């Protein structure tokens, strides 16, 4: 059988997840039977309203919040934009300074960049070689003008998990708000907004087996924040637009499932990931694991293979039925490879040769075997083509 005819081995769950059947089943009636507008007054619309309310309780329960503190959005990017722009604009008379990290998702970084054009000043904190933000650096960066600290819970490229509770404490000690982008963390890092001192938290349904285009922003009661989407009075006047009822219902069911047994889920996924990492490092020379050795998402493996380029790796893997991603500049046609990998101190060449494999609930040990079978061959072929490969790292030619 041709590799392509087979079901692909999907190892790109940080990009997006498949939807679990029970989540689709929960959504289904809200496309058809309960199509009413949750804002309508007749009894028929009540089921739609109930669906949204139920999902709000599910999200709140998963992160230790009150349902009134959960606001639905059209995904993680909107939640990040709302949190950062909304907090900045609402607190402008108190100060104009924001502290964030160099490895945030572009939904936060580009939002900060836009705010700089509006006159705010932003400190982009460096990270160590493992991608960790030092809470001491946060403390040092904070000034009297600091109104917001935004540091992600876990990174989407290298999986590094931050000391969120400590950073939250530092922010609060200095009277700044604390936002965390938890888009990649939900379902892998237990979240308690109270214990972790979080004022604003972004999440997104399609990263934990829910639907795409739906997310939520947690806003601690009493937090000063401007609206982002103006219009009707939905979401208690905080976020306009007729609710994506099936999506919201799916998000609620998805977060409930994803947080039911985080520890068990992590153990199972990390066991496969650890074997993958060990075997790749053991079988392919001149390879490094990017990110933190232990403080990382259980499903994330990010490698740099010297002498080769990521997009080529990706496409050869694709030809053999494996879906993965890379931080190479070539993959985006831009001049800079991943800002995250560069921030951890990797050279351009190392960042260029990066490969991210992120496991998920449907992956099996056989999938790991497939990758372990194909990857050394792919790297070997590309190293044969590359002018950078030293002779010792070339596969001896068989004539």
């Amino acid at each position: 059988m041709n590799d392509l005819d087979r079901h692909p081995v999907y190892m790109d769950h940080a990009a997006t997840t498949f939807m679990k059947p029970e989540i689709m089943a929960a959504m289904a009636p809200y496309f058809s039977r309960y199509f009413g507008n949750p804002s309508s007054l007749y009894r028929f619309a009540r089921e739609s309203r109930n669906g949204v309310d139920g999902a709000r309780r599910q999200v709140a329960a998963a992160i230790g919040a009150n349902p009134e503190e959960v606001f639905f959005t059209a995904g993680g990017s909107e939640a990040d934009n709302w949190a950062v722009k909304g907090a900045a604009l609402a607190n402008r008379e108190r100060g104009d300074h924001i502290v964030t990290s160099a490895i945030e998702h572009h939904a936060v970084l580009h939002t900060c960049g836009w705010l700089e054009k509006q006159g705010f000043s932003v400190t982009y904190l460096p990270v160590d070689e493992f991608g960790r933000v030092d809470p001491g650096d946060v403390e040092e960066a904070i000034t009297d003008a600091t109104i917001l600290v935004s540091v992600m819970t876990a990174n989407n490229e290298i999986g590094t998990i931050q000391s969120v509770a400590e950073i939250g404490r530092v922010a609060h000690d200095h009277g700044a708000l604390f936002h965390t982008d938890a888009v990649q963390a939900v379902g892998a890092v237990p979240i308690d907004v109270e214990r972790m001192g979080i004022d604003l938290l972004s999440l997104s349904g399609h990263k934990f087996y829910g639907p795409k285009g739906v997310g939520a922003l947690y806003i601690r009661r009493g937090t000063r924040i401007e609206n982002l989407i103006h219009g009707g009075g939905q979401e208690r006047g905080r976020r306009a637009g007729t609710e994506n009822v099936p999506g919201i219902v799916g998000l609620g069911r998805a977060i409930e499932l994803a947080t039911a047994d985080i520890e068990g889920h992590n153990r199972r996924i990390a066991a496969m990931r650890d074997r993958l990492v060990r075997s790749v490092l053991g079988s392919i020379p001149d390879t490094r694991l990017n990110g933190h050795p232990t403080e990382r998402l259980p499903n994330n493996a990010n490698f740099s293979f010297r002498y080769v380029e990521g997009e080529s790796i990706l496409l050869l893997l694709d030809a053999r039925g494996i879906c993965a991603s890379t931080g190479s500049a070539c993959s985006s046609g831009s001049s800079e490879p991943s800002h995250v990998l560069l921030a951890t101190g990797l050279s351009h060449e190392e960042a260029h040769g990066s490969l991210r494999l992120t496991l998920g609930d449907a992956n099996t040990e056989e999938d790991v075997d497939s990758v372990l079978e194909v990857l050394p061959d792919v790297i070997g072929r590309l190293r044969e083509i590359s002018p950078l490969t030293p002779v010792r790292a070339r596969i001896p030619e068989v004539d």
Partner: protein
Amino acid sequence: MYTEKVIAEFTNPENVGEIADADGVGEVGSPTCGDIMKIYLKVEEDRIIDARFRTFGCAAAIASSSMATRMIRGMTLSDAWELSNADVVDALGGLPEAKVHCSVLARDAIRAAINDCRTRRGLEPRETGSSRCGGGTGCGSCPENG
């Protein structure tokens, strides 16, 4: 995003390797993505009898090197000099706009190898001109495209 032809050329590239007693070697780096292409020529009289490459770069760069080396085999040096990146792109059945600069890399590497050959023969290197694709394709490589 790539055509079947590009994928086929990339997954089974021809002319990978070096020529130990090459008459000309050209190495160029892409200003856009930092990638590197190295082309080796074996020349008899004025004709290229063998061309090989090594490339550190994306699928488009590898496919372009493979295609370009195939195209210049058997050509005279002056014909090979005239090979444009658009000829390579055409032979590949097209490249995405953001990847046109990868084909420019192949043209530049060939010209660098030809000039190396000329220098070794005691001739003046030819003016390589700008590393433009002549396209206005918006790939980001040309200064006017930012």
